[in-house]
């Protein structure tokens, strides 16, 4: 059943709250600032509660079922993260308090910076960026300032492999860089010959997602970094896929200059549902001075008797502040909790299980779906969502049909280098039983595509909302809830 909107259940004059009589003298607001009509829903408190509870029950979430949304690392978010972040010592502090009254918060941020440095092999970390894409912006700003300081003004080109995350070219373009696509070779690695051809004194840098969006580890990562460095460029590592590498491979060790983390992917802070995300950025020693201002440091060393004094330090040639206050502190608490809980061995176990789960699914599915790059994968893999012998069935139809089996669909139509891509990332937190149930559904769908293709084209059948009209959604954009002719938001 379709849930009516909150406006549909509105009845004139009904209220949820009775206000006490005002004890403040009335004041006439200037005419120009007063709207004559303001159409707000008029409902009782119970109606509001029921309406939004019903809506929330129609939602799909990692706490309800398997969510193999490739590239997004939709792992379970342990509830202990929530308990810790709700401790009053954290919730009752304010970022404008004097630093000597928030030493616990600062200790947590400092320690998280140290943990991330150790995990990825870098020399300094900022926790400011709001999420991955802002981390990329920080990275490209640092690359730009680094070259400018050296008088290298002719470096205007950013190389982006065709297997990179879609945000990489967007971040580069936002800074005014010329985005130059870099092709992949037949094994899904960066094409080294093409890379060499494109490396000259116009090169600002390379934005490198490794493992890439095919879920493949670039076997030539050392060579790639060397070629870019020899041409005077910097290598930005997109750390969105760090879940595959924890405790096994450190991007800093092979000379990658800058890397962002997605706490909402790798480190189990909420992803989706508004997050918010968090995208700390790590840099090598030669870029430490460019980090956003401020970062957390030790102002006075401690000893056996006294704890160190933590506070804010200001990188000398900083690109500036990029986020209000100090980033999404609530996410820092959750990521800190997760890392502290798991420890070194626990983190390595995550990567190993994430890779094992992905390879298990890949092996089980590759007989029934085409696997264009047939290699041992990392934490995710990409199948083709169509069959040559089945006319007019697309990745979208398979994705929608999966919803009928109560699974969240995989990422589809990305990466662009695979036709009708279905990008599947199980994460480490799923059981063998769940993986087997997913395989069973995928194999059933492959069968249905041949026996009853219309079933796929009309899917989903069992969801509160059926197939959305994507063309209409993209063309008839409605940004405002509109009710009748007298909706003030439209009229005025």
């Amino acid at each position, binding site marked *: 059943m379709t849930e009516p909107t909150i406006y549909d259940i509105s009845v004139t004059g009904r209220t949820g709250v009775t206000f006490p009589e005002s004890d403040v003298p009335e004041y006439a607001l200037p005419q120009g600032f007063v709207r004559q009509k303001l159409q707000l829903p008029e409902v009782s408190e119970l109606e509001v509660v029921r309406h939004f509870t019903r809506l929330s029950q129609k939602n799909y979430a990692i706490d309800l079922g398997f969510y193999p949304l490739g590239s997004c690392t939709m792992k379970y978010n342990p509830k202990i993260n929530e308990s810790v972040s709700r401790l009053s010592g954290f919730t009752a502090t304010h970022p404008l308090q004097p630093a000597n009254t928030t030493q616990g918060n600062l200790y947590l941020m400092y320690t998280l910076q140290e943990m991330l440095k150790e995990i990825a092999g870098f020399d300094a970390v900022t926790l400011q960026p709001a999420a991955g894409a802002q981390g990329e912006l920080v990275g490209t700003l640092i690359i730009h300032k680094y070259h400018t300081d050296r008088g290298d003004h002719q470096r205007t080109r950013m190389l982006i492999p065709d297997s990179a995350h879609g945000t990489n070219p967007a971040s580069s373009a936002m800074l005014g860089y010329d985005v130059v696509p870099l092709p992949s070779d037949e094994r899904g690695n960066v094409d080294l010959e093409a890379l060499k051809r494109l490396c000259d004194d116009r090169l600002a840098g390379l934005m490198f997602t490794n493992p890439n969006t095919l879920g493949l580890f670039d076997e030539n990562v050392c060579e790639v970094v060397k070629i870019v460095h020899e041409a005077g460029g910097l290598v930005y590592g997109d750390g969105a896929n760090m879940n595959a590498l924890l405790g096994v491979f450190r991007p800093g060790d092979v000379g990658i200059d800058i890397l962002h983390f997605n706490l909402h992917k790798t480190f189990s802070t909420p992803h989706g549902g508004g997050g918010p995300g968090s995208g700390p950025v790590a840099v090598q020693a030669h870029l430490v001075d460019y980090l956003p201002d401020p970062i957390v440091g030790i102002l006075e060393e401690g000893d056996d008797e006294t704890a160190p004094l933590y506070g804010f330090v200001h990188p000398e040639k900083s690109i500036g502040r990029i986020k209000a206050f100090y980033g999404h502190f609530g996410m820092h608490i959750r990521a800190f909790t997760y890392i502290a809980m798991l420890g070194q061995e626990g983190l390595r176990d995550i990567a190993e299980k994430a890779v094992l789960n992905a390879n298990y699914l890949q092996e089980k599915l590759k007989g029934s779906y085409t696997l264009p790059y047939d290699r041992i994968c990392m934490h995710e893999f990409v199948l083709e969502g169509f069959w040559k012998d089945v006319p007019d069935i697309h990745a979208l139809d398979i994705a929608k049909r999966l919803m009928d089996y109560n699974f969240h669909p995989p990422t589809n139509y990305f990466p662009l280098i695979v036709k009708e891509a279905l990008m599947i990332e199980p994460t480490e937190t799923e059981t063998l039983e769940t993986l087997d149930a997913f395989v069973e559904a995928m194999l059933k769908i492959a069968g249905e595509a041949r026996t009853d293709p219309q079933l796929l084209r009309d899917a989903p059948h069992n969801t509160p909302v059926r197939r959305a009209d994507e063309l209409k959604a*993209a063309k008839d954009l409605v940004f405002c809830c509109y009710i009748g002719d007298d909706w003030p938001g439209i009229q005025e």
Partner: protein
Amino acid sequence: MLIPEELKYQKTDEWVKIVDGIATIGITDFAQDSLSDVVFVEFDIDVDDEVSAGDSMATIESVKAAAEVVFPVSGKVIEINQTLIDTPELLNESPYEEGWLVRVQAADGTELENLMDAAAYAIDIQDR
């Protein structure tokens, strides 16, 4: 897949037809089919611009992806199909007729020799 005999084709799926030195350029049936429903067209050039082969002409956005269209020939832009701004679906419905993108006063007729004929283009898209 429709591949008219009289047109020339570029690897990036643009077609071009030159009549009396005026080149009409669009995207192929294969291109519109791969993109699926087009929802948005944005031109990167204006009338009277001097353009070179390889320059960006327009960005086409569909429900699935965004794609760049590049000039197959050099010359001066003389006409832009503005009806596509409001009715981008013409690119799906009529890629070779009403869905043309840009007309150019072609600078150099010999550039056509670098492009594919219909038979070569048909082979080119076979395995894609």
